[in-house]
């Protein structure tokens, strides 16, 4: 009887301890973020152009729980980040968050209830990859989220759809613009793009 209790306790300690100690897995943290986003997008009360601003505000609030836009901005800018002043960094990040918000939320809004499956996760030190598929009329499109461990929170800093990395794509565009127009030119292009989104917003 006693031995059985000891064995049971031992087994319990083996199974329970790592769960208690460790940070929640990247998948476990990403799931509720995506869930809250898909819920917002499916919410009938938030649909239509009349509720656009309210919907965007709510989506942005939900995204910031699990997505690190500042990290994205840094990674997109690359080496130039080291060469600019603190004020320039602040302004750049501010403009980038606006840009990424327009891009990412704009893309999210085309979501219409497709099923998302979580396939696999990989953790390497402080980085992780969560592989999902989104079902698009029977064709399963692979979407990988790349996360970074920030304190005890896994934050997404890149999204890879069908092999195409969001950060990598903007990074290459920035490189090409930086080559000819330098940092000041790049900032102008970003401001211009953000303005075009605002105009689009006004005309809707």
């Amino acid at each position: 009887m006693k031995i059985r209790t000891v064995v049971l306790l031992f087994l319990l300690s083996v199974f329970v301890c790592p769960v208690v100690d460790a940070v929640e897995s990247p998948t476990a943290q990403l799931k509720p973020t995506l869930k809250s986003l898909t819920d917002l997008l499916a919410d009938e009360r938030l649909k239509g152009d009349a509720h656009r601003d309210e919907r965007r505000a709510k989506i942005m609030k939900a995204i910031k729980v699990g997505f690190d836009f500042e990290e994205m901005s840094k990674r997109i800018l690359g080496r130039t980040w080291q060469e600019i002043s603190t004020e320039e960094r602040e302004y750049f990040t501010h403009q980038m968050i606006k840009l990424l918000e327009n891009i990412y939320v704009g893309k999210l809004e085309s979501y219409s209830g497709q099923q998302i499956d979580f396939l696999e996760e990989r953790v390497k030190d402080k980085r992780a990859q969560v592989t999902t598929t989104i079902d698009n009329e029977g064709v399963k499109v692979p979407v990988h989220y790349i996360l970074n461990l920030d304190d005890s929170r896994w934050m997404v800093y890149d999204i890879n759809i069908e092999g195409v990395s969001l950060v990598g794509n903007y990074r290459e565009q920035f490189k090409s613009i930086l080559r000819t127009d330098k940092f000041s030119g790049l900032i102008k292009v970003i401001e211009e793009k953000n303005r075009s989104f605002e105009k689009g917003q006004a005309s809707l």
Partner: protein
Amino acid sequence: MRIRSCSAIPVLLCLWGFLLVSSLFAPAAVAAAATPDLLLEDEYGYDYADGQGADEIADPLEPWNRVVFVFNDKLYFWVLKPVKNVYAEALPYDIRGCIGNFVNNLASPIVLVNTLLQGRFSDAWTVVSRFGINTVLGVYGFGDPAASEFAMPPPAADFGQTLGRYGAGAGIYFYWPVFGPSNVRDTVGRVADYAANPVNYLGLNSDEALGYSGTAFINRMSIAPDVYEETIKYSLDPYVAIRQAYHEYRNARIQRGGTEGNE
């Protein structure tokens, strides 16, 4: 139509049998399509240095390609999109879907050859089964009961991908008039796939062939999502955005073989 389909039937039946048997013994080919490890290369490492190791896309023709890019952009917004819109107005979505199915069904021998060349035997088996099911139950391939009733989504395979899987490099980047992004490897692949298309052997005259290709092209545009317009809208340098996306998309296709998720 006097097609060579009569003599093709026993050949197809033999293939079917062969694939049925081989698919039982080829789990290794299926296992190869695991999820890619995107953490391997942290090219955007913590010092945010430019990824020296990252593969650069060879684009010595960039100035010329950018001219073609502008041309295609005008072609898209001034010609193709209006044509597509009229076409989409005239035909309901379901019918356009059926036309798309028919075109894809006719092209399935190309996919079959490429899956076989790539050693993807279970996909090859799927292609043959789909062709059989859709041609008979889907009324000459206009319907896609294989996908809707038998849960067999179409595998994708092309000759550019086959070349890539045998180790061929991409070569320099091309932006073709009308067709858009490509490279040396995929251009060769495209030409080969086009030449192998059974439609070319139906004895159509050049006008009919052009009509078929044109309809297939516009039809595909009308049912595919507007990736091009999206990219233009969300990019700061659309030329670079498309070049990069094409490169990464093709590499991913070559690495995973295009079967992920539908094991």
